């Protein structure tokens, strides 16, 4: 460095990697397309799963876009944005995570030739934004409301939305079964906003059909002390006492010390300690409760005490389970056993300990306030149940969303085709470059039906042409037509009950456009070397010894992309 004649202005730390300009933009787009390619095959009912195992040996088999993106451990800065939108779609609507990544990838892919031709990215961004707004307007216009229907009707409509989501998952074979289960669960918790009121418990063994919904709470038998088996295991209309205290013989204060000078007083402190715990237990019994649950330990002494008095108890109940029991039974969690009044006791119709697979479960069913539901999932392998849980989570979110927004759009690529057609039509009315951009946006939307066909092994061009023709009918009757996954042709998605809540689509298009615009607006990346020095070495050797030490320090045009 010192040998250089002209002193260089060093702005950044040595080894900092910066790259900028058009090439950077193209490179970012390429990275995003590569990521979108990974999840591409998981779309739709004929989508495949990915098996990902990390170096710790954890294995996940999944079809859920967000899960896959998360596990891929993407380090590319631009591509990371795609992970974020998948995540946001997951937390916002719960489903359509693959769709959103795919759309963003496709928007960028369409933008690439323009960028290469020298179009200013901001122009593209502006047009994309307009197109996005137009698309959302159109979805809102096309959406069909399910508001004002009777509960029964609503239920079956919601079940159809759930079934559409589930059809692409591993449990797709039993989608009706699970769809109705999900709908029941969501309706059971009503307008409660806390999603954790729906518990999902996983028990390996059995088959999917053995899964069941408990209109209340179920949890695995907790650790129990001797004497537990002597307690009764079934109650009708029991009173339930929920505690957050330890029922154990133990020192009351950590640091307290008793000094005795008279040995004959020894017995009195022993008795005093026992009296404390007996007093507590006695109060529990006096309250009339037949089931005692505590978040903290219930010791052997207490277990036996309760067993003697025909009371069921369970200690170390997981906090969320306890909260669910509280919500379901109408009880309140107590932190003291003093002044237990009837109002704080919960109740339910039936309490029972039951064998589920290899486990024993405590099941509270028929709860009065009924704001909770628990789904007990069964399946052949752990991986299987994990994936089933993720799928059900998606379905639950969808049903909740549909319940709140209560508008649906036809799925199977129908809505995407319709928006695409609409945008193309609209583009014709625009003078200037924007026309081209909106057209390419419209083309990008077609990726959804195209990918559906590809994944199912159909001729995408053929099906897409049929769809375009249908959607172009002037009467507008072709609008709900989408890909028919069973025959390889096209069908009316709406009458085949392939439905999605409109909010899924709106959010997906919004998020994908945002992400695409964000990536398009980036023209320089500055990478700090320190945080990734280990990586740099690996990449340097991969690049044939073009290490950073011998390069041009400080000069940003090195464009060493890693």
């Amino acid at each position, binding site marked *: 460095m010192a040998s250089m004649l002209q002193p260089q202005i060093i702005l950044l730390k040595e080894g900092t990697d910066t790259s900028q300009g058009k090439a950077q933009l193209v490179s970012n787009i390429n990275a995003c397309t590569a990521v979108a390619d990974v999840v591409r095959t998981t779309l739709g009912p004929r989508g495949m799963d990915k098996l990902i195992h990390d170096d710790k040996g954890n294995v996940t088999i999944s079809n859920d876009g967000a899960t896959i993106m998360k596990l891929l451990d993407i380090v590319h800065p631009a591509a990371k944005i795609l992970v974020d939108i998948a995540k946001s779609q997951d937390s916002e609507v719960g489903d359509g995570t693959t769709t959103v990544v795919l759309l963003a990838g496709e928007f960028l892919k369409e933008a690439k030739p323009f960028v290469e031709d020298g179009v200013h990215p901001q122009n593209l961004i502006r047009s994309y934004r307009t197109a996005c707004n137009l698309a959302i307007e159109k979805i809102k216009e096309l959406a069909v409301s399910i508001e004002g229907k009777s509960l029964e009707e609503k239920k079956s409509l919601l079940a159809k939305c759930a079934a559409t989501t589930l059809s692409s998952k591993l449990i797709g074979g039993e989608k009706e079964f699970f769809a109705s289960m999900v709908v029941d669960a969501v309706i059971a918790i009503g307008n409660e906003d806390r999603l954790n009121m729906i518990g999902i418990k996983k028990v390996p063994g059995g088959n999917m059909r053995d899964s069941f919904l408990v209109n209340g709470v179920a949890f695995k038998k907790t650790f129990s002390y001797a004497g537990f088996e002597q307690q009764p295991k079934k109650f009708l209309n029991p009173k339930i006492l929920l505690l957050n205290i330890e029922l154990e013989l133990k020192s009351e204060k950590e640091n307290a010390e008793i000094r005795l000078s008279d040995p004959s007083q020894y017995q009195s402190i022993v008795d005093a300690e026992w009296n404390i715990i007996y007093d507590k237990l006695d109060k529990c019994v006096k309250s009339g409760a037949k089931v005692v649950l505590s978040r903290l330990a219930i010791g052997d002494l207490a277990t036996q005490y309760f067993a003697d008095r025909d009371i069921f108890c369970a200690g170390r109940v997981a906090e969320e389970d306890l909260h669910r029991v509280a919500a379901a039974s109408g009880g309140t969690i107590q932190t003291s056993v003093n002044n237990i009044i009837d109002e704080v006791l919960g109740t339910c119709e039936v309490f029972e300990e039951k064998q589920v697979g290899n486990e024993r479960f405590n099941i509270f069913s028929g709860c009065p306030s009924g704001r909770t539901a628990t789904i007990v999932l069964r*399946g052949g392998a752990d991986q299987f149940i994990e994936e089933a849980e993720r799928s059900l989570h998606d379905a639950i979110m969808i049903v909740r969303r549909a319940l709140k927004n209560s508008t649906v759009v036809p799925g199977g690529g129908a809505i995407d085709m319709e928006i695409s057609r609409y945008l193309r039509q609209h583009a014709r009315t625009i003078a200037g470059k924007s026309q081209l951009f909106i057209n390419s946006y419209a083309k990008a939307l077609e990726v959804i039906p195209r990918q559906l066909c590809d994944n199912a092994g159909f001729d995408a061009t053929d099906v897409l042409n049929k769809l375009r023709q249908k959607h172009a009918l002037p009467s507008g009757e072709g609008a709900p037509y989408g890909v028919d996954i069973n025959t390889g042709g096209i069908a009316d998605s709406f009458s085949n009950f392939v439905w999605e809540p409109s909010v899924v689509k709106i959010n997906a298009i919004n998020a994908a456009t945002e992400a695409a615009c964000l990536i398009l607006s980036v023209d320089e990346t500055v990478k700090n070397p320190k945080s990734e020095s280990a990586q740099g070495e*690996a990449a340097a050797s991969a690049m044939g010894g073009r290490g950073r030490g011998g390069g041009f320090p400080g000069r940003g045009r090195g464009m060493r992309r890693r």
Partner: protein
Amino acid sequence: MALAFDEYGRPFIILKEQDQKTRLRGIDAQKANISAGKAVARILRTSLGPKGMDKILQSPDGDVTITNDGATILEQMDVDNQIAKLMVELSRSQDYEIGDGTTGVVVMAGALLEQAERLLERGIHPIRIAEGYEMASRIAVEHLEHISQKFDFGTTNIEPLVQTCMTTLSSKIVNRCKRHLAEISVKAVLSVADLERKDVNLDMIKVEGKVGGKLEDTELIYGITVDKDMSHPQMPKQIEDAKIAILTCPFEPPKPKTKHKVDIDTVEKFQTLRLQEQKYFDDMVQKCKDVGATLVICQWGFDDEANHLLMHRNLPAVRWVGGVELELIAIATGGRIVPRFQELTPEKLGRAGLVREKSFGTTKDKMLYIEHCANSRAVTIFIRGGNKMMIEETKRSIHDALCVARNLIRNNSIVYGGGSAEISCSIAVEAGADKYPGVEQYAIRAFADALDSVPMALAENSGLQPIETLSAVKSQQIKENNPHYGIDCNDAGTNDMQQQDVFETLIGKQQQILLATQVVKMILKIDDVISPSDY
């Protein structure tokens, strides 16, 4: 994973440590997965059926297991491949749910995968194969329901239960005295079963084993055995009509949990303390005596002083009995666990007809039998056998038999074994296939072929000509329209499983088919495997 290059020829890294990861996708991934699954199934194939062979498994620390229980073999094999792990879990979940048929389910899944491979080669979309399998499994399960028979049993008529348990045991090493073991299992299950709720808690059956003696000496004890002896060698070895005090407190002066300190500054004080301690012991023993206990079972120990005192007062005692055993004793004898001497009352004592200490052969091992308990809700199966491995295997076999008996209490439908149910399903699925239009039809036919592999393996393992035997039985089934014909593994001279009394539970069989289909679907659905390459 190979590096991606952009237009300018520069590599770009998308994933963390991308070049250290391997990625397998498309048809290659499916092929690799299928062959892993098949490999696992091949290992278990020879263990199927009454003439199946055993495997010897050595763990890293040198423990040897000999078994032919599918779940155990796979568990101990410690497989590394992810797909193979799925097969292990498959067998495990059959074990959890049904307890029996763990080998059959893996063989079935392996056969399904094998068929799927052929279909994949023809270019059929994997998901459509999976869907076809699912349809076929539905047909098969319905058909099983159709050919199943209900049979009645009661507490007095246990014969049908015994027969079914015998079928399970016949494939095990213990089949020499399967009748004996089957009866024990059934009686054990019935004595702890809650017939009204159709609930059986197998925790209430203690399976205990001791090396020595013959397998035939295995017995069912209406009570509990404890691997302990009396605390003092001079205590009586046999107590009739025992009244048992079950204690969770030690024979010691009570200790407060709070930190404490007794200041002793004079000799007098020390004397009082000493006297008091002695008084404690005295009181405790007296308390037990007062309520009429003739035996004390204690969760904790007691020191020699207490031991001597107990001996002196003629109160036999057992110390260091584990919590689980203590609980079982309490349940068996109808007693209550007492945490404190002050709480002892005559009602809380457990009662047993006979408590005796038994020593075995020439060894010094002693066990305590607490038996003849009135209305016992907890029982013990006490296994004897030539060596440790034999006992372990017997334990597993008995577990299977117990599970079968439990399943029958839950649902009393049975199907006939010996591969007859599979053959019958295969015929039904084959016939059903033609009703489905589309590619799935092929998959359904393949499913029917896969079903044949179970009787085929049975025949193979029994030293019969597999193809000949299978086709003969199949044609016999169709000709006489009787789903009871199976493979005559034991060379009993008849193919009719009804006459041979070979039964299996309906839910066990259904579960096998459903679980195998489920896992195969999962494997088929994977088209992309991303893993660190050093794996």
